[in-house]
């Protein structure tokens, strides 16, 4: 996943959020079936092939456990995995929250100050180029081997994404600016009443990019020494002991978590952008 591109949020919204028409329920059902069945079929095929290969080739489960065993372990260990997953997700989301809390005001301030915007854009590109792993020793110096260290790393990695999107959103001009000026709206009021809601498509697009990345970064950081009760450190421990099936069950949990978080953001997107022209063609 690239962190460097900022897509036009409106078109993305059209593609992903265009729901079925409320009437003609039968058509909607067949449409959903049409979009769900092919991937479900492929998944079944894939799992079947996996199961078969492991069985026929007699592959050691340390190398590649069969899917049914992963599923069994996943369910058996569910409460533990869910607890670890919740901790990981919480670190990731806190990191996103902090990066928003920094990026949005800073972008808001730098819109009207050209040199600040240019300078910060350059440095946010530099930050994007830093591999996450190398940040860990630095973060642990400040925070110890703990959750705050992971949150700090997520904050730093996600900041450039949110900053870039926010700056883009805030820089777009419209006739509404003239309206706000004509009623003598002070700068702060203009930002709250116009700029912020107007740029919410950009901010939501930023979140849609940032949230999945934050989860990846959190898990990788945990892997290198985060809090013990997280998915990343669980994966490290189990991998070190060659408990490969446990590792796979943790992978399954992080995948489901990622899907859940993305769905959450999409849901939020739908609520926040109810007014967007792409929602009511």
């Amino acid at each position, binding site marked *: 996943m690239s962190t460097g591109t900022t897509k036009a949020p409106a078109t993305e919204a059209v593609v992903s959020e265009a729901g079925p028409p409320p009437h003609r329920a039968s058509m909607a059902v067949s449409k959903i079936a049409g979009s769900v069945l092919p991937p479900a079929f492929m998944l079944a095929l894939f799992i079947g092939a996996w199961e078969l290969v492991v069985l026929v080739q007699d592959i050691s489960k340390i190398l590649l456990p069969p899917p049914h065993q992963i599923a069994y372990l996943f369910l058996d260990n569910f409460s533990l995995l869910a607890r670890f997953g919740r901790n990981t997700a919480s670190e990731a989301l806190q990191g996103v929250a902090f990066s928003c809390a920094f990026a949005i005001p800073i972008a808001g301030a730098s819109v009207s100050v050209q040199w600040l915007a240019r300078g910060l854009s350059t440095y946010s590109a530099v930050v994007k180029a830093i591999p996450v792993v190398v940040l860990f020793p630095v973060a642990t110096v400040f925070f110890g081997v703990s959750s705050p260290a992971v949150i700090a790393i997520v904050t730093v990695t996600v900041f450039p994404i949110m900053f870039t999107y926010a700056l883009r959103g805030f820089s777009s001009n419209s*006739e*509404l600016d*003239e*309206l*706000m*000026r*004509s*009623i*003598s*709206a*002070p700068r702060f*009021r203009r930002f709250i*009443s*116009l700029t912020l*809601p107007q740029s*919410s498509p950009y901010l939501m697009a930023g979140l849609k990019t940032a949230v999945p990345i934050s989860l990846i970064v959190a898990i990788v950081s945990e892997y290198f020494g985060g809090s013990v009760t997280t998915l990343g450190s669980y994966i490290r421990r189990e991998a070190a002991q060659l408990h490969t099936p446990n590792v796979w069950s943790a992978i399954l949990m992080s995948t489901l978590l990622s899907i859940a978080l993305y769905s959450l953001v999409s849901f939020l997107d739908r609520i926040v952008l*109810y*007014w*967007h*022209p792409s929602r*009511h063609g």
Partner: protein
Amino acid sequence: MPLGETDESLGLAARSVAKRFYSKGGDVLALENVMLSARKGNFVSLIGPTGCGKSTMLRIFADLIPPTSGEVRINGKEVGLARKDRDFSVVFQSPNLLPWRNVLKNVCLPLEVMGEGRKERKARAKRILEVVGLSSFERHQPWQLSGGMQQKVALARALVMNPSVLLMDEPFGALDEITRDRMNLELMSIWQKFETTVLFITHSIPEAVFLSSHVVVMSARPGRTVAALSIDLPYPRTQETRSDPRFFEFVNTLRKHLAVASQQEGS
């Protein structure tokens, strides 16, 4: 035209206004020696060929852009001060409603900026919406309204500040003929109720004649005020006004002025 009167009796005054736009492709002189004034309570239309700088003149009055030279006043005040005192409000070519706000909240916007209390805001906005006949659409979102209704919301938003001067930049230009006629009638009754001074930009001659107490004609670029006409058709003007023979006389006179104005090339 009541030129030479004291500032206090004038809602709008522009003296020798020029506007030059500087750009890489070369400077453009958009306005030159514009003289315009309107007594308080007058309805003045500014009419001229496309690109003559009518809108530029309105934006100078609205303190959205500064004139290169000349003097512009609203209610005798320098326009920057008039804007801060909220002496005027602007109705733009497009309705410019905030799409994330419903009709009522859109109308409330200027009152929020003025720091009006929540209850007072709502009450005033509701009163204005009643005047423009949109009471039953308070909770609608802008995209659920027709173009004409959206522009009425914009008008309500402009009126809610209770301005003494209304600057209208071709507000009905995007509407169909029938809707436009109806909007004109409604604007007439609103104008008489609120007794505001109006500067109305249009390129429709019948619209200008129907609405205005005075019409000012501008020449092609650089825009100059070349003629001023007092439309002494009696108010209140109604649908019948449009079939008055004097209405046609005014339309014809203006048409001739406009034809001459359009041919004048800038020096």
